[in-house]
């Protein structure tokens, strides 16, 4: 039987140059849930995401993913292949076309035959609204929004159980932000399990099943978006949200 929690993070600590960046983070993510992490720059949000798929190795704590203790696995690349990661700056492979970017993981990690991988990659690209005429373009020939959608397709094609988004729209202009958020919202509706680090509180209001506010390596507040974004209890969170509401003109008062 599948347990409800896909991911359990317990007392996670990370020190960088002797300074604690994460101070005992504990939370869990259920299957099909969209968890949104808000917080100021330098709060440890990116580090937290990178610890979950061990791009950064935490110093203490436990990460249970799909019933397995991730930190005890020696074949970490197998665990990573089950978690997608979408980066702020897209991080597409610049010497490969959009299609090749999506195919690489399928062929080299999932050992799929080429033609099968190609079919699957094309499906993934279609799913994020990248039309056929763009498949053979190189990243430098695509707009930021297109690049980020290719990056999402690259993660999706691997059929991950969880996708981690690290400020996926922070490098995009508003029109392109819409493109990307739209794709993410559809993923959430399709019950993809996601952890999203973002400043898009509008997106969080619509999509998040739970919002966590992270500052100084700690979770200051967590709960449904209406609570954390509109009526936070914590003073620090309140100050942050007031400013966010001003920036995004979302003062519902």
């Amino acid at each position: 039987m599948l347990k409800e929690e896909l991911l359990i993070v317990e007392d996670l600590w990370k020190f960088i140059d002797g300074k604690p960046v994460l101070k005992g983070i504990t939370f869990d993510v259920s299957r099909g849930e969209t968890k949104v992490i808000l917080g100021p720059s330098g709060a440890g949000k990116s580090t937290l995401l990178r610890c979950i798929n061990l791009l950064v190795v935490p110093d203490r704590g436990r990460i249970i993913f799909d019933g397995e203790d991730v930190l005890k696995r020696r074949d970490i690349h197998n665990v990573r292949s089950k978690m997608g990661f979408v980066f702020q700056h897209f991080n597409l492979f610049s010497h490969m076309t959009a299609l090749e970017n999506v195919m690489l993981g399928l062929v080299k990690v999932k050992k799929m035959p080429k033609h099968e991988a190609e079919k699957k990659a094309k499906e993934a690209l279609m799913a994020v609204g990248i039309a056929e005429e763009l498949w053979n373009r190189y990243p430098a020939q695509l707009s930021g929004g297109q690049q980020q959608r290719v990056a999402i397709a690259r993660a999706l094609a691997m059929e991950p159980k969880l996708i981690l988004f690290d400020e996926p729209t922070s490098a995009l202009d508003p029109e392109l932000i819409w493109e990307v958020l739209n794709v993410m919202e559809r993923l959430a509706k399709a019950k993809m399990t996601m952890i999203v680090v973002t400043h898009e509180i509008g997106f969080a209001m619509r999509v998040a099943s739970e919002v966590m506010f992270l500052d100084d390596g700690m979770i200051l507040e967590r709960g449904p978006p209406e609570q954390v974004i509109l009526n936070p209890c914590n003073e620090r969170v309140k100050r942050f949200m007031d400013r966010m509401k001003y920036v995004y003109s979302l003062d519902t008062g």
Partner: protein
Amino acid sequence: MISELLYVSLKYGLLLLEGLRTTFIITIASYAIGFAGGLCIAIARVFFHKILKVFAGVYVELFRGTPMLVQLFFVYYALPEIGIRVDPVTASIIAIGLNSAAYQAEYIRSALSSIPYSEIEAAYSLGLTKLNILIYIMLPQAIRIAIPTLTNEAIYLFKYSSIAYFVTASELMYVGKLIATRTFLYVEVYVLLALLYILFSIVLSEIARYIERKLQIPGYVT
């Protein structure tokens, strides 16, 4: 001058071509050794753990820090002392190749380290192994970046293969000297040699430019 040039070309053309052939053999073989060696050293320096890194570092410093001629003499004169006897052309190929490996290693290493970590991180996040990342993400980009300097090295080797002259390998320079002493047309013969070196250097750089264009990533400005 012109008539003497023609005279030398006609009378000794075949001999010069043979010299040119040997020059090419030395250049191509030592470049190949240098590239293969350089690639391994560069990968060791960027990618592997301490001991290998130290070995690779020592190799580079040793071969960059001593004159190529000394290295050539060492291969040709010192190796026979321990029972390894090699002919002049082979000795030249080994010495120049080992020397070039040190330089090519540095060119490839700097290209490897200029690849943005963000792409490597993305590759890790897909579940690729370190080796696969090296093969499919890092090397294809590093080689593209390194092409101009690697071309430089090829042209350099083509000209400096002439030091094989000192161990009597019958390459272009050696043949030229032979013809010059036979005909006493020193200036004309060396002008002819210079023209040949220039001609093929230009051919080499044109070939490299062609390869560079072929491999260029569309829309990508470096």
